[in-house]
């Protein structure tokens, strides 16, 4: 049933057009009303090779919602194939044609039968948000584009983590995950970001295993890959941030992939050595600037809320206030996710609230017991709240309007230092103002 959405923190399923946009040379074709692409194009770093005014779009009008828009879609696809330089065309459906009942699948299948690289993913806005839309699109690619192979490449690992652009740090995160996997001597395979694209997409069935780094998004995809190609998967529950969590991450992968233990431990040791060199140099800054052992609240999707809770608690020694998960996590995953927040150092447990209504979240944060100014990590919507309670504020979640993220990342050893840098910078800024 309809419910109040104040301060939206996700888009609708069609918003996952940005997932398609983030695979090199793969273009979404929207079968939707004319305004969807611009509205859903909101975000950081969205111009790219294709962008919302480049995406072919059937721009449905009044007569199309009465008489159907199938003809319009046919000519949009046919001409997109002539005009747009792409390796793969992904037709996405919006609300209007789904309610009206256009037979989009049949149209797309015909193009595929004629040999054109076209797939379809139903993504009407009323069926779910862009986190789900992301999964549905990946499912469509797996089912309609990938083919089973007998070739398996030893050490090849498909990495699945963030929802591109919805997570403003997606580009840097995927690169850092690749970097970590490479350090273990494995071969990372991702489909998002610079130069990855169609070749990597085609390699997916050859992988030795799938690595899912996410609390719940993508779980359906790796299960489908297992079912379709027999590829096992490792479900790692969150992005690793900072030394403690990244070392656990590397050891876990080493164990799963049955890698030489000594080699993995050496990688961990070398990284930790460097990490703690910096931490040692800034130990005074942390201890003497009122940013040690702070309380914190995170408002974000399950991925970030969990990952940063782990980092701040297990690495920096902070104390969690209530934590807020805004991605409308499906009910079946919630109990499990709550458990992840109970697995923290020194017997600490964090209370998690699943809430999509920003008003409720902010009232709750205001009333939580932060006695001293806390660290608030969230989206643009939390900025004025943080100001009003004099908290240190760091934006990590969509919508972000106060910082640029090009290829920055909080993932890994260096990512942890970046997040620490941000916290320190906020503190210095506070002292100046």
């Amino acid at each position, binding site marked *: 049933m309809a419910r109040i959405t104040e301060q939206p923190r996700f888009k609708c399923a069609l918003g996952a057009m940005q997932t398609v946009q983030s695979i090199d040379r793969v273009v979404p074709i929207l079968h939707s009303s004319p305004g969807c692409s611009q509205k859903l194009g909101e975000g950081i770093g969205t111009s790219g090779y294709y962008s919302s005014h480049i995406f072919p779009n059937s721009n449905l009008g009044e007569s199309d919602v009465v008489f159907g828009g199938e003809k319009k879609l046919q000519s949009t696809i046919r001409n997109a194939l002539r005009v747009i330089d792409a390796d793969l065309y992904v037709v996405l459906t919006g609300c209007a044609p789904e309610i009206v009942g256009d037979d989009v699948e049949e149209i797309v299948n015909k193009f595929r039968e004629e040999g054109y690289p076209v797939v379809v993913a139903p993504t009407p806005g009323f069926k779910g948000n862009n986190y789900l839309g992301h999964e549905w699109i990946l499912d469509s690619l797996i089912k309609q584009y990938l083919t089973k192979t007998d070739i398996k490449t030893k050490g090849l690992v498909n990495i699945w983590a963030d929802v591109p652009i919805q997570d403003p740090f997606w580009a840097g995160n995927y690169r850092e995950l690749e970097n970590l996997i490479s350090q273990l001597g494995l071969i990372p395979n991702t489909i998002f970001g610079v130069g990855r694209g169609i070749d990597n997409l085609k390699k997916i069935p050859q992988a030795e295993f799938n690595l899912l780094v996410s609390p719940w998004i993508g779980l359906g995809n790796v299960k489908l890959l297992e079912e379709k190609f027999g590829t096992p998967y490792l479900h790692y529950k969150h992005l690793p941030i900072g030394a403690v969590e990244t070392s656990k991450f590397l050891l876990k992968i080493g164990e799963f992939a049955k890698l030489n233990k000594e080699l993995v431990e050496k990688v961990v040791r070398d990284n930790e050595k460097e990490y703690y060199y910096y931490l040692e140099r800034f130990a005074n800054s942390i201890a003497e600037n009122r940013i040690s052992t702070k309380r914190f609240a995170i408002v974000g999707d399950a991925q970030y809320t969990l990952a940063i809770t782990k980092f701040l608690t297990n690495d920096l020694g902070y104390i969690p206030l209530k934590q807020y998960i805004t991605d409308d996590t499906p009910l079946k995953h919630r109990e499990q996710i709550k458990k992840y927040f109970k697995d923290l150092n020194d017997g600490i447990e964090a209370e998690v609230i699943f809430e*999509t209504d920003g008003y409720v979240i902010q009232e709750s944060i205001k009333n939580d017991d932060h006695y001293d100014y806390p660290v608030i990590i969230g989206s643009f919507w939390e900025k004025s709240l943080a100001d009003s309670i004099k908290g240190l504020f760091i934006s990590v979640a969509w919508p972000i309007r106060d910082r640029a993220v090009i290829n920055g990342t909080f993932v890994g050893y260096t990512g942890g230092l970046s997040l620490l840098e941000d916290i320190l910078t906020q503190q210095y800024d506070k002292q100046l103002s």
Partner: protein
Amino acid sequence: MDVNVKNSVLGTREKRLGTIITYNGTFNDLVDKTNDGSIKEAGRCFSQGSACPSLCAISGMSSIRDLLVINHGPTGCVSNAGTLADGTRLITNSLAVKTSSSSLIGTDMNENDTVFGACEALKEIVLTAYKRHKPSAIAIASSCVSGIIGEDLDSVIDDLREELPIPILPLHCEGFKSQVWASGFDIVDNAVFNELVKPPKEKRNVINVKNFSQFGRKVIDELFTKLDIKPLYIYRNVTIEELAHLSESLATVSMCETLGSYIGNALEEKYGVPYINSITPNGIVGFEAWLREIGKVVNKQSEIEEYIEEQRAIYIPKIEEVKKKLKGKKVIIGMGPGLGWDAVRLVQEFGMEIQWTALWHYDKQHDDGKAPQAVRYLSESNTKNFNMSISHIQGHELSNILNKYNPDIFITRHPGASTFAVKQGIPTYFMANEYIMFGYKHTLQFANSLVDRITNRSFVRNLSKNTKLPYKEWWFEQENDLFQGKKEI
């Protein structure tokens, strides 16, 4: 227009103003075909993402300071809530005005709702939102989904009017309803005019200033203070109480002809508030014509002449200096018609050569039944003919045109349109707000900005060398209007 017929559902621009989104030819041909009545919408058999009336309706309405918009639709329809809140915050912070952090709330319609309807849930959401924020008015905006499944928003609004002590406004702005997103501006005007504007009790020393942002507010504030008049900027940051008095103002001006047509003419027709009858105050010619028209209406001609003389002395010599550097430079313009026609006029004032003008839509007439002022000015002043298209922000057409002509500069104004040119190594000026060409001072800044962009092309050159356009080579061998006027090619 018939302002005495109160109707919550306003006809689209296509129906009211004969607006088209597809054309290819020249300025003179467009005007001739308008005059002989032969111009009509031709359509395209290939299109790219454009924009919808909901976008314009909701952004305009939600910018009213103490009004809350509830958009009855799936959550993607309110994806721009953050951007809108930020835009309002820029103004309210600069004025030190307190506002609620929420100006736009969605109802997150889901699959069940498409089957069973969600009017009851909508009502509950409105009541909750009212309790939370105590706005002075609430507008309920439709969406594609609520429109297609036939949600009876007018009945919901009737019920809510019984329960809440504030005006409840309908905003019938389904995205599929019009291909002309500017239809959304009129939907806001219609709702404000019908539901909020009260009949006049007394005349006030105020001029209504219709605009998007308020970036030119300093110049207008200073000028109006000299004339002893107060500006009332609509709609960003205006209050419901202030809107009630729009009918008592001395006049209405609009910074963009596309934006002001409906409310300006409605106030004139029903309440006799003159809608300033001049081209918009962009560039020197426009600014002076506009000032003199205001002078006439408020009977301050001599003060206006003094102001013009004083300002001319400061700015004209500097503008003349910069013009020397712009003379003969080749320009392509791609933007909406409101400021687009003004840009056409202004670059000609600068002595630049127009290679092509692509406007997103074309209104054959505005709500006074006459052709847009800017078009009349251009045809009456025997402007040199130029190539043009009505292009509905179609990237493939723009990229093709830019590729063919390779101008010295591309001037545009719509999020995302700059990449059509910068990736071809073409210096681009993005008109971020409607005051960029306003008055002497901004005209000078604008001219300098163009010169700077033409002078250092490093960024666009580097970018174009290292990126590729998203179109196949084949496309650049075709005419830009290949898909226009056809069902199939």
